C-alpha cells in the first residue's frame, strides 16, 4: 500500500458523547412536540389496521400498491417532520448487479459503513445496526504465526518424533474464528501489519436466507438483489440463522432514527424506515441503483476499492475486474454463489 493512499482518520472521541447527547436531546424534543401535535388517535389506528392487513407487496394489485405507498409516505412525513417519498420503481431490465472489492486497496477506514448508515436509515443506537462489517486481520497470522512455529512439540513414537504437532500453531483455531475482529478502534488507519476484509450481504444466487423464510418475505428480485418486504416479515429470524456471512440484522427494538438524520428519499424495498421486530440487510442501495446511481458505499470509498456494475454487460467495470484480476468469493464451500467478489491486483 503506497504512502499517498494512507489516510488519517481523526477520531473525535471527545466530542462524540457530547454530540450524541445533543442528538438525544433533539430526538426527545421532536418526540415531545409530536406527542403534543398528535392528531386524533383514530386516524392512526386506522392506518395501523390497514398496514396490519396489507398483503405481500408482490401480490398486491396496482391500486393496493398505490394506496400502500401513499399511506407510508404520509406516515413517514408526519413521523420525521419532512416530506418523504417512498419509491416503487421497478427492477431494471437485462441487469444483474455485481460487486467487486479490492482487498489490497481497502484501508479499513469504514467510510463505507458511515455512508451506508446515513443513506439507508439504519437505527443509530439500541439497536445499533450496520450492514457492512470490516474485518481486521493481522498480516501473516491467518492460521499461521511465525513466532509460534517452533512452539509445542511433535508427538513421540518408537520410530522417531515425527508424529503430529501438539501445541503451538497446531492449537490455533482454524478457519475464520479467532483470527479476525471487527471492533478495532485505532488512532489511524491503515494499521501496520493489518489488512481489512469488508463483509456485507453477498447477494447470493442461491441465498440460504431466502430458502428458509417461512412466509417468503425475503426474495431475490430480477436484478439479483435479495430484498425484504418489511411489512410482510414476521421476525422469526430464520434468515439470520441461515446466512453464512452474518449479513442480516434484526430490529430488536424500535429503531432510533433521529429525524434530522433521516434520508427522505426512500424505496419500498430499500431504505424506508423499518419498524420494530423485522429483519433488514444490504440491498446494494436499491433506491439508488434502480435509478442508475452507484451504491453509497461505492461512492464513499476514498481509495476506490469498491467496484459495482452490471454483470450481464461485458463492458462494465465489474466484468473487467472478473476478466483481468485474481478474484475469489467468500465462503465458496457454502454453495451460495455470491455476486459479491473479492479481488487483488
Amino acid at each position: 500500500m503506497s504512502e499517498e493512499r494512507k489516510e488519517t482518520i481523526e477520531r473525535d472521541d471527545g466530542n462524540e458523547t457530547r454530540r450524541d447527547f445533543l442528538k438525544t436531546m433533539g430526538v426527545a424534543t421532536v418526540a415531545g412536540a409530536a406527542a403534543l401535535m398528535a392528531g386524533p388517535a383514530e386516524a392512526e389506528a386506522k392506518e395501523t389496521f390497514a398496514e396490519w392487513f396489507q398483503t405481500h407487496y408482490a401480490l398486491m394489485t396496482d391500486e393496493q400498491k398505490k394506496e400502500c405507498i401513499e399511506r407510508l409516505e404520509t406516515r413517514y412525513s408526519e413521523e420525521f417532520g419532512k416530506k418523504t417519498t417512498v419509491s416503487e420503481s421497478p427492477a431494471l431490465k437485462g441487469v444483474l448487479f455485481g460487486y467487486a472489492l479490492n482487498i489490497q486497496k481497502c484501508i479499513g477506514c469504514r467510510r463505507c459503513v458511515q455512508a451506508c448508515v446515513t443513506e439507508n436509515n439504519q437505527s443509530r443506537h439500541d439497536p445499533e445496526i450496520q450492514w457492512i462489517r470490516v474485518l481486521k486481520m493481522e498480516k501473516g497470522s491467518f492460521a499461521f504465526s511465525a513466532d509460534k512455529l517452533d512452539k509445542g512439540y511433535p508427538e513421540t513414537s518408537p520410530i522417531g518424533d515425527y508424529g503430529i504437532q501438539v501445541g503451538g500453531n497446531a492449537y490455533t483455531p482454524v478457519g475464520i474464528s479467532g483470527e479476525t475482529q471487527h471492533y478495532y478502534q485505532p488512532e489511524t488507519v491503515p494499521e501496520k501489519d493489518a489488512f481489512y476484509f469488508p463483509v456485507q450481504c453477498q447477494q447470493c444466487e442461491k441465498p440460504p436466507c431466502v430458502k428458509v423464510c417461512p412466509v417468503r418475505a425475503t426474495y431475490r428480485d430480477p436484478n439479483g438483489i435479495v430484498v425484504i418486504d418489511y411489512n410482510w416479515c414476521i421476525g422469526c429470524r430464520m434468515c439470520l440463522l441461515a446466512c453464512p456471512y452474518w449479513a442480516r440484522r434484526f430490529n430488536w427494538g424500535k429503531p432510533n432514527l433521529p429525524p434530522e438524520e433521516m434520508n427522505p428519499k426512500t424505496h419500498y424495498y430499500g431504505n424506508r424506515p423499518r419498524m420494530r421486530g423485522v429483519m433488514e440487510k444490504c440491498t446494494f442501495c436499491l433506491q439508488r441503483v434502480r435509478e442508475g446511481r452507484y451504491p453509497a458505499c461505492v461512492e464513499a470509498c476514498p481509495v476506490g476499492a469498491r467496484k459495482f456494475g452490471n454483470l450481464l454487460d461485458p463492458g462494465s467495470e465489474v466484468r473487467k475486474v472478473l476478466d483481468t484480476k485474481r478474484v475469489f468469493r467468500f465462503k465458496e464451500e457454502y454453495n451460495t454463489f455470491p455476486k459479491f467478489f473479492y479481488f487483488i491486483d
Partner: protein
Amino acid sequence: MKKMISFVTDFVSYAIKGGAKYYAWLLFLLFFVLVGAYTTFRQLTEGLILIGATDQGMWELYMSNFIFTAHIAAAAVLVVIPAYIYKRKDMKELAVLGEIIALSFVTIGILFIIYHVGRPERMWHFIPGLGYFNIPNSMLDFDVIVLNVYLIVNLVAVFYLLYKKYIGQPINKKYYTPLIYLAVAWGPLIHICTAYVLSSNARMHSWATAVLPFAFLSMAGASGPSLIIIIFLLIRKYTRLQIDDAVIDLFSQIIAWSLGILLLVLSSEYFTELYSSTEHAASIKYNMFGHNGLNAYVPWFWLTMVLIVGSFIMLLIPKIRKSYNRFLPAVCAVVFLVVLFEKPVILVFPAFVPNPLGEYTEYYPTLVEYFNMLFVWAVGFIGLTLLMKGAIGILTGEVRHPDAVEVKGGVK
C-alpha cells in the same frame, strides 16, 4: 348439545376442586402467570430488545424451551403405543393421559414460538389462503404444519374419548383407532421436523449434523417418560386411579435405554467432530473447553455429561428402578432437568459461537426473558394439571353424566 354443556361444566368443576396441596400448586403457578403477564406486556410493546438475544446469538430461552417441549410432546406417544399397538391391557386407560401430556406440551411449544417471533401480530401470514407458505423450501413451515396438526389430533382424540366415557357410550373404534394411529405416527414426526429446522442450517456447525434427529428422539425418550413416571406416581398416590408397577417399570426401562442411545449419539458426534478437529469443531470445543477465558458453558457441559452417564448407570440397577417412592422419582427428576437445561447451555447458546465472522459471544438471559419463559411454563402446567385432574375424574367414574350407564371394561 345439552350433554356437551354438562360435560364441560362437570369437567371444569371437578378439575378446580382439590385439597390444600392442589390449591397451593395452582396458586404457585398463578404467581408466575401474574408476573409474566406484566413482562409479556413489556415485550409486546417494547420488542425483543428486552431479552438477551443479539444478532450473534439469535435464539433465546424461548426456542431452547420450545425444543424441549417438542421432546415431551413427541414422547407422550410412548404411553399410547403400548396400549394401542401392543394391546397392553393395563395401559389402555392411561393412553388418554399421554395424549393430554402431548396436548399440553404442544400448546406450550407453540406459545414459545409466539414469544420468539418479532412481530407475533403478523402470524396470520402463516394461515393458508390468507398468507403465504414457502413450501417446500422452509423447514419452519413444515414444523408449523405438523405441530398444529398434532395439536388438533390430540385435542380431538382426548375430547372424544373423555366425552364418550362421560356419557357412558362405547367409543366408535372406526373413528378412534385411525386417529390414535395418526397421533402415534405424528409424535416422532413433529420432533424430526423440529430437528430439521435446526440441522438445515449449514453454517451452524454443531447443528448441521445427521445425528441431530436421533439425539432429539433419544432425549425425548429419556425426558418424556421421566415426566410421565413422576406424574403417574403422583396420580397413584393422590387419586383413586390405579397404575400398575409394571407400567412404571416399562417407562424406567425406556428412559434407561434412551439414555444409552443418547450416549452413543453424543459420543459419535463428538468423536467425528474432534478427531479431525476442523473448523466445524469450533463450537463444540468452545462448549467443552471455553475460548480465551470465555467459558460460561464449560461447567454446564461437563455437569450434563456426568449426569447423563450417572442416570444411565443408576437406571441399570434394578433396585433403583423398583424404588418407586425414593430413588426412581429422584432420578427421573434429574433426567428431566438435565435434558431441559441441556437445551440452552449445550444445544442452543454455544452453537452460535463462533459466529460466521469468527466472533465469540456469551449469552446472558434477562429477567424479562426468564419471567416470560416461566409464564409460558406456568400457563402450560396449569392447563396440564386441570386437564389431568378432570380426565382422572372421568376415568375413575367420579365425573359422569346422570344418564350414563356403566360400560363394560370401564373402571378398574
